[in-house]
């Protein structure tokens, strides 16, 4: 059996633009790459019944989420000729306007990066055991549901 290290996609708190810039900059030495596709999820200050969302508090079944993500990663690498794939998801309280999801794919030509990125976002939302609790500005809450 191969020894496999499961990658941790979780970060505590919001994903900063500086972190994203650093991740992009690291690819400058990978000169076989011709196209990068990025998706970022940002917390909306939605108004629901007259109350505004202050942020979302994310929790996850971390061990299961990481093994699910590992299987998804393998399937995506088999399906698309990618050079790189990076996924980061926030845990804890993320305020409106902050970034909670960062998906980053790279390939020699643009199409595989774009298609893999889209598929990853769909699968992350549908298949990873992560839950978002919308915290309103008056400290009440409701649980988010992906539809």
């Amino acid at each position, binding site marked *: 059996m191969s020894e496999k290290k499961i990658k941790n996609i979780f970060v505590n708190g919001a994903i900063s633009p500086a972190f994203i810039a650093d991740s992009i900059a690291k690819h400058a030495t990978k000169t076989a790459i011709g196209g990068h596709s990025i998706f970022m*999820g940002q917390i909306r200050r939605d108004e629901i019944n007259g109350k505004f969302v202050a942020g979302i508090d*994310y*929790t*996850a*079944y971390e*061990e*299961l*989420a990481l*093994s*699910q993500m590992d299987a998804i990663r393998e399937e995506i690498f088999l399906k698309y000729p990618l050079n790189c794939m990076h996924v980061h*998801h926030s845990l804890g309280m993320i305020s409106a306007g902050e970034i*909670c*999801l960062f998906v980053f794919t790279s390939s020699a030509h643009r199409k595989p990066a774009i298609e893999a990125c889209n598929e990853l*976002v769909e699968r*992350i*939302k*549908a*298949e*990873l*055991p*992560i*839950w*978002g*609790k919308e915290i309103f500005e008056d400290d009440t809450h409701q*649980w*988010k*549901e*992906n539809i």
Partner: protein
Amino acid sequence: MEMNMKLEIISFGKISEFIGHQQVEISNVTDTDQLKSYLETSFPELVGMKYKLAVNQNMIQSNQSLKNEDKVAIMPPFSGG
């Protein structure tokens, strides 16, 4: 013959608001369908909710037998991303 089984129950999302992390010792439960009935009797808030189980970190798609010391997760619909 009565069967006794110890299970560890964990829960997430809105279900964690009424089912806490706990060890249960139950009888006459040998598979996940029976466990669901047991849970819905013990925690009526579950009735009518959509939820999935994972046993020892494997998502359960159809009925599956349980064994002593299994760790069962009760999960409402996901909302990551």
